[in-house]
């Protein structure tokens, strides 16, 4: 049942207007380039913030460093949009791909983690001045965030090598 409706969805996405645009000569490479620029923006802002939480660059006040985060969010939005383009254009290549499943899982963990950060630790963290260490729970959140995003990048890069139907070992695909 579920499998049949997934197939149906993949077929419908493949026939869509966006899919035919993406299958032009340069649209895919351009979207990929933007996806990599977005990735770098996210790493350079959220990643550095995580490193500061973990204790690197302690002279930087966290509230000041947080001003860079909107650029990371911009990178993430860019990557959501370009990601939707890829997914639409080759839905079956992603839906049955173990690397894609792990990528989505890593993003989900990162999402829960960032919600935890803003609901529990942000108030404390933003008052920290230069030279002050983040409390242990905030450090853990920083470490989880960094790990999740590195995992998202790794899974994204591995996507091409785990395209169906080559991988029969994937029992849940």
């Amino acid at each position, binding site marked *: 049942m579920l499998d049949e409706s997934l197939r149906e969805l993949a077929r419908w996405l493949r026939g869509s207007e966006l899919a035919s645009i993406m299958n032009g000569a340069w649209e895919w490479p351009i979207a990929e380039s933007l996806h*990599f620029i977005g990735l*770098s923006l996210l790493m350079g802002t959220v990643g550095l913030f995580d490193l500061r939480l973990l204790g690197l660059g302690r002279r930087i006040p966290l509230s000041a460093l947080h001003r*860079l985060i909107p650029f990371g969010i911009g990178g993430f939005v860019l990557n959501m949009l370009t990601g939707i383009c890829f997914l639409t254009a080759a839905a079956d290549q992603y839906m049955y791909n173990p690397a894609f499943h792990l990528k989505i899982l890593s993003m989900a963990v990162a999402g829960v983690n960032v919600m935890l950060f803003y609901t529990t630790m942000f108030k404390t963290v933003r008052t920290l001045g230069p030279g002050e260490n983040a409390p242990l729970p905030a450090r853990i959140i920083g470490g989880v965030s960094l790990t999740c995003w590195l995992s998202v990048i790794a899974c994204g890069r591995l996507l091409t090598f785990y395209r169906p139907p080559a991988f029969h070992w994937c029992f849940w695909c």
Partner: protein
Amino acid sequence: MFAFPFILVVHAWGMGLLAGSNAAIDLRILGVARGVPLSAMARFYPVMWFGFVINAISGVLLLVGYPTKALTNPVFYLKIGCIVVGMVLMSWVRRRAFPRDPNLPGNVRAMAVLSLLVWAGAIVSGRLLAYTCKFLLVDMKC
């Protein structure tokens, strides 16, 4: 050849660290997050150098895997050019601009814009390498 995908993963991590951190410093020079002392951002330089070193190593390994593919493609030289300019700017900014914070001269801002452009250029040309290849091997077309 099992190693090939994992070399690509390392190359993507290094790219995010190096280009991303450079972008953060450039944005700071251009006026975002003014509360961050530039001199304190020097602590992120080892992170950027780490990104550079792992990408130099993984890049050489990718080049050794398919030397003809890269060396016959003009886009490859564009990518290397962007990285050289980006690395020179990265060192220049630390030596010349960091000590003058918060009264940065106008040309430092121009350098920050140039830095953003060359890192974006390195990323785009790197990605386009896969699509502009002419020869995979000496006697094999792409």
